[in-house]
């Protein structure tokens, strides 16, 4: 093997990588936040909704979980624009990632909600909480606390999956790599660098989720034990 590694292009190109990574962070934080809200609402609908609503949410979850993200992104970006709804690559990316994250969050949160005993809701009734208050305070927060590790890893997986949005020319980290490698012909080096950046990002996201968990779940922090 006589290949010589050459990272000299970094001197010129590092701002591109930083910009790409920044867009990746923006896209994924938006999608994780929206996806979490969507998934939580859907999970509540899936457990407490009427039969029709439950079925609709079920169909949504199964459709998204059994088709590739790549195709979902293509349908939002190319498909919708051919139907007359023109969206920019970034907006399409956030929509597709949100819908994807929402489906997985629904399943995770549903498991959490179902793990909360029915008696908790009855107790909330006795205390005179409204249905909304009961679901929010008595069901959702404890449910979220229980499934938080799964939610966090789903968030990290979504960040990694956002690399797929490079295929609709969203100029995030992977698309930046594609551009730089076609400029410099240093494909292997470029993708090695980007792999390292993704590794760092996933470590950062894990750290971030851990910190959010500390703030959000006071009881766990105080007692040092899970629910």
């Amino acid at each position: 093997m006589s290949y010589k590694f050459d990272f000299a292009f970094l001197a010129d190109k590092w701002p591109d990588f930083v910009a790409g990574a920044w867009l990746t962070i923006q896209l994924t934080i938006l999608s994780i936040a929206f996806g979490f809200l969507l998934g939580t609402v859907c999970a509540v609908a899936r457990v407490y909704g009427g039969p029709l609503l439950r079925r609709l949410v079920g169909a949504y979850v199964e459709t998204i979980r059994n088709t590739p993200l790549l195709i979902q992104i293509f349908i939002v970006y190319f498909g919708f624009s051919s139907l007359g709804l023109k969206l920019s690559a970034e907006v399409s990316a956030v929509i597709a990632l949100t819908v994807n994250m929402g489906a997985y969050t629904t399943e995770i949160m549903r498991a959490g909600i179902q793990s909360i005993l029915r008696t908790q809701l009855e107790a909330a009734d006795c205390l005179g909480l409204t249905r909304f208050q009961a679901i929010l305070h008595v069901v959702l927060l404890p449910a979220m606390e229980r499934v938080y590790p799964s939610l966090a890893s789903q968030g990290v997986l979504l960040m990694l999956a956002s690399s797929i949005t490079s295929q609709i020319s969203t100029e995030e980290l992977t698309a930046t790599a594609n551009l730089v490698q076609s400029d410099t012909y240093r494909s292997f080096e470029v993708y090695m660098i980007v792999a390292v950046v993704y590794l760092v990002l996933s470590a950062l996201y894990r750290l971030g989720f851990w910190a959010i968990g500390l703030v959000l779940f006071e009881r766990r922090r105080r007692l040092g034990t899970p629910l």
Partner: protein
Amino acid sequence: MIQLSANHLLYLAEAARWTVLLSLIAFVGGAIVGLPIALMRVSKMALLRGLASGYIQLIQGTPLLIVLFLAYFGLGILGYKLVPLVAAGISLTIYAAAFLGEIWRGCIEAVPKTQWEASDCLGLNPVQQYAYVILPQAVRIAIPPTVGFMVQIVKNTSLASVIGFVELARAGQIVNNSTFEPFAIFTAVGVIYFVLCYPLSVAARTLERRAHVGR
């Protein structure tokens, strides 16, 4: 403008066979590499444990798309011809091995400690312990999550389209380039993926439910 016709759908269905083949390659390759990874992960030697967990962290912390590009261009550096099927097969194997290794580690650890102790008392050596006592029980626990993970493999083969391997997703793009009906085409592609994945999802859920009956 060319209309989307039965021929196009036939072309997609034929490309779906490559998706299935690539999924099988990834699953078999992932299983062959993943089992040693899982065993290393529960090994008594810290070095083996560290190596396996380093590998898992590395692969689970980078997007499959980047692994795919690295395999594709890496093969070129090593002086091999850039065959998309080979590059896709290698990177999906690397990816599947990391996830299967982690799933199976959990399954091996889920076998009660007492089984190890009992087989120790019977004087079995470690190889016999694994072969006759631990793994047969771990396999039962492992089947539902493994089937569930196969759904991920099938879906992720769609990324092979990026390096020019003509499987289902790439075939969809090709048809789209001649008909310009992206909504209809990618919906059709999505339906085919759904048909491939949904039975696996249902099977995983059913197996899971059945596995819990005894408990």
